[in-house]
């Protein structure tokens, strides 16, 4: 197992360097000069322009800028945002817990509903229940997030008044947030009703962000289960008189999980992309919106630093998924 982990970790290094280069190049390939964008309609004299480029380091050759960026990254310094003037690292970590909390809840929601739905659909293949579930999943997968979010807000917050419209907690709760995870901080604050308020605020964004992964997981689970249910060892188990619950729950599901876990790992990218819209609509202070704003403002340090951190996260998740394969299917780690 150790060799397996080490070999996986080694592939990390070239990927990391590649991502560093791509994240650096990506924002510079886009047309548009950050200093001109900053000046806007008001414009700027040539001298002032030269002064600012020198101050921000953009007058130097590209390779020199990249070298400085790379050495900074290796020392844990991603530079300062030139809009807020604060370190990219600080900004990222003040926003990331919100995205992580929302993404985790969305993933739990998607798995908690998606896995059983897929299994039930597979077991009832071709019957009404299967068709209804899979049609619903297709609708969920195809639905524009923006529209879905506004629809839920209008119905549940506007008309029924069951959930708050947006934000992370009722504004009248105010307490320090050492972890940045509202659920944890609200419990730690000891304020009555804070946790309930935080949970109510989480509900709609979780559903919106979890909808697409839920649909994907349900469909993937169903097809993986169908494949496994046709295997010889399942027929053998049936022939031995094993109960359907044990067959489906233990023998079939465990083997069907491998492709499902791959899908869950890959969904992390989808979740982060979905987070951009979900965070904007629900005024959720996470990294999705932060990145989009920075691209529009041509805030080079934030875009390159943020992309790098997100890429590293996706890499870590995929590494974890690889490890999980090893646990679920010992054959893989011996290959």
């Amino acid at each position, binding site marked *: 197992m150790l060799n397996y982990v080490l070999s996986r970790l080694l592939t990390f290094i070239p990927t990391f360097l590649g991502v560093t280069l791509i994240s650096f190049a990506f924002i510079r390939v*886009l*047309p*548009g*000069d*950050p*200093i*001109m*964008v*900053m*000046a*806007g*309609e*008001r*414009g*700027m004299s040539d001298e*002032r322009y030269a002064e*600012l480029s020198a*101050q921000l380091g953009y007058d130097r050759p590209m390779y020199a800028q990249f070298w400085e960026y790379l050495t900074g990254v290796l020392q844990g310094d991603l530079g*300062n945002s*030139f*809009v*807020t*003037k*604060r370190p990219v690292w600080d*900004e990222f970590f*003040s*926003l990331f817990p*919100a995205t992580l909390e929302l993404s985790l809840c969305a993933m739990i929601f998607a798995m908690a509903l998606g896995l059983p739905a897929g299994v039930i659909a597979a077991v009832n293949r071709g019957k009404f229940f299967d068709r209804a579930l899979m049609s619903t999943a297709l609708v969920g997968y195809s639905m524009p997030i923006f529209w879905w979010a*506004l629809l839920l*807000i*209008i119905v549940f*917050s*506007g008309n029924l*008044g069951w959930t*708050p*419209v*947006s*934000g*992370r907690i*009722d*504004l*009248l*709760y*105010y307490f320090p*947030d050492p972890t940045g995870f509202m659920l944890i901080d609200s419990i730690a604050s000891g*304020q009555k*009703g804070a946790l309930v*308020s935080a949970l109510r605020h989480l509900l709609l964004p979780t559903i919106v962000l979890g909808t697409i992964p839920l649909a994907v997981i349900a469909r993937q689970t169903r097809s993986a289960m169908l494949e496994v249910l046709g295997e010889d060892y399942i027929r053998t188990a049936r022939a031995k008189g094993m109960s359907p619950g044990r067959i489906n729950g233990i023998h079939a599901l465990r083997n069907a999980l491998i492709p499902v876990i791959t899908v869950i790992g890959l969904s992390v990218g989808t979740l982060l992309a979905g987070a951009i819209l979900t965070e*904007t*609509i*629900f*005024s959720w*202070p*996470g990294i999705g*919106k*932060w990145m989009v704003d920075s691209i529009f403002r*041509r805030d080079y340090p934030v875009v390159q630093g943020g992309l790098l951190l997100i890429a590293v996260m996706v890499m870590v998740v995929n590494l974890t998924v690889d490890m999980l394969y090893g646990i679920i299917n010992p054959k893989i780690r011996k290959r």
Partner: protein
Amino acid sequence: MSFKHKLATAITLATLGASAASAQSLVYCSEGSPEGFDPALYTSGTTFDASSHPIYNRLAEFKVGTTETQPGLAESWDVSEDGMTVTFKLRQGVKFHSNDQFTPTRDFNADDVIFSFDRQGNTENAYNQVSGGTWEYYSSMSMPDLIKSIEKVDDYTVVFSLTRPEAPIIANMAMDFASIVSKEYADAMMEAGTPEMVNQAPIGTGPFTFQAYQKDAVIRYLRNEDYWGDKAKVEALIFAITPDASVRYQKVQAGECHVMAYPNPADVQAMKDAEDITVMEQEGLNVGYLAYNTKVAPYDNANVRKALNMAIDKQGIIDVVFQGSGEIAKNPIPPTMWSYREGTVDDKHDPEAAKAMLEAEGVSDLKLKIWAMPVQRPYNPNARRMAELMQEDFSKIGVEVEIVSYEWGEYLERSKAEDRDGAVLLGWTGDNGDPDNFLAVLLGCDAVGGSNRAQWCNEEFDELTKKAKVLPTQAERAPLYEQAQAIFKDQAPWATIAHSVVYMTMRPEVEGYVVHPLGGHIFNQVGITQ
């Protein structure tokens, strides 16, 4: 008030009720996050709403709801005969806020005024480079060239010596970048090795004290109980950052916020019809225009430009592009600005007459490029659509239009070129409410090849604006600006298109809100009825 006290107040507020609609706290759904809290470092209105308006004061202040100035931290000022020096008499007994790292030991005085400007203009000042300071507004208002020196006569008298007479200097002193910060706090933070705290945990003299900011989520302020002017009506002010306009509206309806900015134009009618929603409106301090290149034939001929202006169906543009949230512009300055020329008669929309006029000038088979901005601005919410409507209008008089666009930075840069091919859609939002800030900046001879996108240099116009700039009183300046507007209309370097209409949406229990023509959202005077 110490940090613990503030926390205690906040917790008390929290226990007052579960809904945001407490009489003690006003919740404003703002459209975005501030870049920081030191207004001199930034240029966006969103940042000013969160920093300079609640937290700070300036030597002069704009009277809320007007573009006129009134005394602020300076009780009075005196401009010398030659206009080269301005002496400010400062207000006494003004207290700075405190926070858990700083408690002021003295009142506001001349040292704070000198520090607030010196850090922006003097590269030797220890704060000049702090927080990546680029001091954009200070530069773009030409302060480095204008201010020769700032001297302290005594603790409560400061003299600004200028390099030339300039009447708008008082209005400049009321602008956000001229907010007065505490020198004592800045020194203390420099000593503690955390100078960036001046930007992150601001200390000012304003009606609200800064309490906390959770990035992209919430900003909290408490009433400044020691405020020198009229105290704020609410105990706490909360900005709930809500980027999506539809969601902001839902929050107002649900009672989660009291006031919201920038509604979707498409929602305005429904808001006006709703019983429990109040909508206020005012023309914004801006203008959207189409600037011809007056240096290139045949657009160097004023009659050709006027003919083209007559072909444009401005009402159609207001209906389609602004969805009603705009007003036809006939002058280059907005109607809320002093010296606005009421008597101007706008070019009549008359394609037949326009066609005849072009023929009379011997112009036929004209091809024109229209540049469409790639971004949304209040003065032009959809430049592409506007360009398409103009394309349609111009085709009716036989002018063939090609629409071009560039990335925003490129667009701004390329449109400055004196040999530019085509007419540019652009606009301007005023900074200090002074007509000079529109007429000289956008149409002066010095601005050709820069912000004068029409590349239009009319000596008579230029002389009038230059003369008006150095006269001491508004009454003397206004007639000159009115004459300048008449010349502008006669020469038509632009087609003036529209001024946006700014809407503010609020709950009926909000009282005392005034829409500010300079675009800021100010809450000192706003209260909530039970």
